[in-house]
């Protein structure tokens, strides 16, 4: 019996493989797709040559229905609502393939883009780090940055909160620091209750941005530069803090108590305006204007990253990015974010044109 087992094991594995191969039959349809895209690729250059076919954005005009296949994207949960709306509109206007978006955090998005090479586009609410660029280089990818919008990071409390309308950047740092526990530790006239903190997790670009912009100034080392590690440690070891990569969990947490405070992308605040209150920081309230002219101290860019070779090998990815860069300003206000400055968007469009050559 013992001797027969390896033989039969091999038989079983072959049988299992055969079973999986049977299941592979429906997918030849997907394999055929690259073949049908070939004629499309020759159409696109024709379109760009004719000046009349250039849309208002300056990018070559495309018809989503000419493209099919998969566009795999993943990354920031902040960018997710925007990406979702753009993908739905892309599909609405005729895209025959599939766009998948995973909301896993900017860091994890770069991981999938640069280390494992699983995605075509990385969504991010922070700029790419040098170490991530290096990982990409190891895979043969050169990330191209496309600025798609601006977020005014919302510092939110529940509408039941009656003692907060405005905080200074410094107080904000103290509120999330391990050095304080109660509200009254930050400002004496605030209640002597524990601060219930809600923050995005360490994989999130929002977290990285907050650490740099808010906690960083409190932790300067000898030569005046911000010690980001110490700043990160500060917020991570604070008491009563709940971390989640899912901004919806944070929203629920904040609206649960009048002593709770949290921060996330503006879109998640505007979706819940009835139950949440956004604080002004240093006297400036988050809005389209204050985000645009940078008077709101916590405004930050929203990006999508891709690579020129991916855009060439998968024209549907190029089409998707083209679509996003052309129409993002029509949808972004409704999603809850703010348009990127004209200069930034123009630069992104130019980067796209350069990459398409």
């Amino acid at each position, binding site marked *: *019996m013992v001797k*027969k*087992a390896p*033989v*039969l*094991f091999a*038989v*079983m594995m072959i049988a299992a493989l055969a079973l999986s191969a049977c299941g592979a039959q429906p997918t030849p349809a997907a394999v055929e797709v690259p073949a049908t895209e070939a004629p499309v690729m020759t159409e696109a250059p024709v379109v760009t040559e004719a000046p009349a076919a250039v849309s208002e954005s300056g990018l070559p005009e495309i018809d989503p229905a000419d493209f099919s296949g998969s566009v795999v994207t*993943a990354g920031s949960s902040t960018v997710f609502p925007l990406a979702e709306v753009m993908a739905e509109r892309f599909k609405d206007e005729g895209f025959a393939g599939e766009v998948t978006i*995973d909301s*896993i*955090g900017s860091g*994890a998005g770069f*991981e*999938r883009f640069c*280390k494992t090479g699983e995605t075509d586009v990385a969504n991010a609410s922070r700029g790419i780090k040098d170490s991530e660029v290096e990982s990409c280089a190891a895979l043969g990818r050169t990330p191209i940055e496309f600025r798609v919008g601006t977020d005014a990071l919302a510092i939110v409390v529940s509408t039941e909160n009656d003692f907060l309308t405005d905080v200074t950047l410094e107080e904000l740092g103290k509120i999330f620091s391990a050095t304080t526990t109660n509200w009254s530790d930050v400002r004496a006239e605030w209640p002597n209750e524990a601060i*219930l903190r809600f923050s995005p*997790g*360490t*994989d999130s670009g929002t977290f990285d941005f907050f650490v740099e912009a808010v906690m960083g100034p409190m932790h300067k080392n000898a030569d005046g530069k911000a010690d980001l590690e110490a700043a*990160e*440690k500060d917020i*991570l*070891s604070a008491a*009563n*803090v*709940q*971390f*989640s*990569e*899912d901004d919806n*969990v944070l929203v*629920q*947490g904040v*609206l*649960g*108590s*009048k002593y709770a405070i949290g921060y996330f992308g503006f879109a998640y605040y505007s979706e819940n305006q009835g139950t949440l209150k956004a604080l002004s920081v240093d006297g400036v309230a988050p809005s389209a204007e204050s985000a645009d002219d940078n008077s709101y101290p916590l405004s930050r860019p929203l990006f999508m990253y891709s690579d020129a070779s991916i855009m060439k090998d998968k024209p549907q990815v190029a089409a998707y990015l083209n679509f996003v860069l052309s129409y993002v300003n029509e949808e972004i206000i409704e999603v809850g974010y703010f348009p990127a400055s004209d200069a930034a968007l123009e630069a992104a469009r130019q980067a796209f044109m350069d990459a398409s050559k």
Partner: protein
Amino acid sequence: MENTRQYTPQAPAIDLRRHKRPTEQVIQAFLVFCGVFSIFITLGIVYEIGKEALLFFKLPEVSVWAFLTGTTWQPKIGAFGILPLLNATLMTTAIAMAIAVPLGLGVAIYLSEYASPRVRALLKPVLEVLAGIPTVVYGYFALTFMTPLLRTVFGSDVVDIYNTASAGLVMGILILPLISSISEDALAAVPRSLREAAYGLGATKLETALVVVLPAALSGLAAAFIVGLSRAIGETMIVALAAGAGPNFTLNPFKGAETMTGHIVRMSGGDLSYDSIDYNSLFAIGLFLFVVTLLLNLFSQFVVRRFREVQE
């Protein structure tokens, strides 16, 4: 055998030694493989989880002692104490058992000793339905019904929106049918003669149930208790939705805290880079969980065997 040669040529000789054997041998080998496959699963679990967990423990900043006794779990700053997670697991389990054991036993005794066959035929399916509801539905129930209920009763200042009490209570409802059905099987297995002897001596139904039947079924009841405990410790969705999203060492059931299972699910949802410290730390927690539930299961089997011997 030579006898077969004596048959007349019209009747065919049946030689069993050549008939169908190779097929039978193949089938038998397949069946042996199936039987042994389950061992592969366990080996797979132990190997994979152990391997990653070992990678975790080998890291210089991690020590097994700190893992088992530290009170902060925050991998990014090098704090790897499992106690906050373990504490939350134990709290939800304790609350769940506090609900499920008395009620479960009550239902079991009622069904086996008091209820008429018609009532039993009606109630057993109801309990089975409760047992068959997916845990994510219970999680939804905890978040949308139990938490607001607790906040209304105790006040929203006392009860946070994520809290272990709500998760524990709903987990108790989840385990109730499990404990009651295993207990009821155990009680029903007690021979009728024991009961009738008690009745013959003038005992009331209650006295028979508590003094005669219950002790006789003790091994089964202990098994039910341990199965329920094991289920509560391993429960994930209810705590993921309702208990909280951050490791928090607190004994206050009205505050949010994350259990071991909730932590694993949350980290997996945020996507993991393989070979990162977060990935390996999950497997360390997983190994801990696996060992705990394995020990509980082995213990329950031991209890059943041991107590049953004493009875007979």
